[in-house]
């Protein structure tokens, strides 16, 4: 029988705290969303001053990442390379800033960040995940 790992609220709080620290250190103002492996919201935080749009975009990046088990930036890159058909993929926001949480080859969920430049969003998401996985 296969066992299944899940992100706990404590895990999410750890990811969010590390991501927030990364953002604050760079004086970036963002929204940070964490979803489970089904793309459903587990945890969300929007820093004071982050736009309302960043709230929705952060969640969509996380959902994209969790459901495809890839970074949302990978989709952006593929489209940039000419695979424009990927724009019609269901439920995909092909913008960098969503990173899956992979543990022992399984995707447990994803982190999506929005608010600054896309590569900076991804840096924040990755910092959050690194804090969780480096234990």
């Amino acid at each position: 029988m296969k066992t299944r790992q899940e992100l706990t609220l404590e895990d999410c709080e750890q990811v969010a705290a590390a991501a927030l620290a990364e953002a604050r250190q760079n004086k970036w103002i963002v929204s940070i969303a964490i979803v489970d492996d089904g793309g459903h919201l587990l945890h969300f935080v929007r820093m004071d001053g982050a736009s309302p749009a960043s709230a929705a975009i952060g969640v969509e990046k996380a959902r994209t990442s969790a459901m495809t088990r890839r970074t949302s930036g990978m989709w952006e890159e593929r489209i940039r390379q000419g695979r424009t058909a990927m724009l019609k993929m269901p439920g995909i926001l092909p913008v960098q800033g969503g990173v899956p949480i992979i543990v022992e080859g399984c995707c447990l969920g994803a982190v999506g960040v929005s608010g600054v430049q896309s590569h900076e969003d991804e840096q924040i998401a990755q910092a959050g995940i690194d804090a969780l996985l480096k234990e």
Partner: protein
Amino acid sequence: MKKLLQVVLALMLAATALCARAQSYGPPITLEQARKVMAAAEAEARKSSLNLSIAILDTGGHMVLMQRMDGAFFASAQVARDKAWSAAAYRRPGKALQDRLATGGAEIRILRLQGASPIEGGDPLLADGKVVGAIGVSGGSGEQDGVVARAGVAALK
């Protein structure tokens, strides 16, 4: 009799106006305020050993803080947001809509209100008498969700 009716009507209108003033939107909730609300709501949930989703939205109905406790069913994540959105948009608790709906008759029109969630567990968040956002709770019974949401509301007062 007619005079009396007029007086009653005038009083009702005045009361409505008063309510509307008391419930106008203020500045959107800060993250610090939201964290205070979340901590109080979560503590209330843990007291009753409930696994819930709790969402806090700003005055525009956009998410500020959200968390799903271990073991909460995944639909609760969306339902909590829906309840909070309804409370922010209509500036009244889901329970108020629920009670009106329960009277039946013409009040079943509430089911057609855009984005309304006529279920206990969503409440406007007030600071200095103004609506600064809303809290939505889902995962327990309506009554349990309501108790947790109101614990969150009380944290700002």
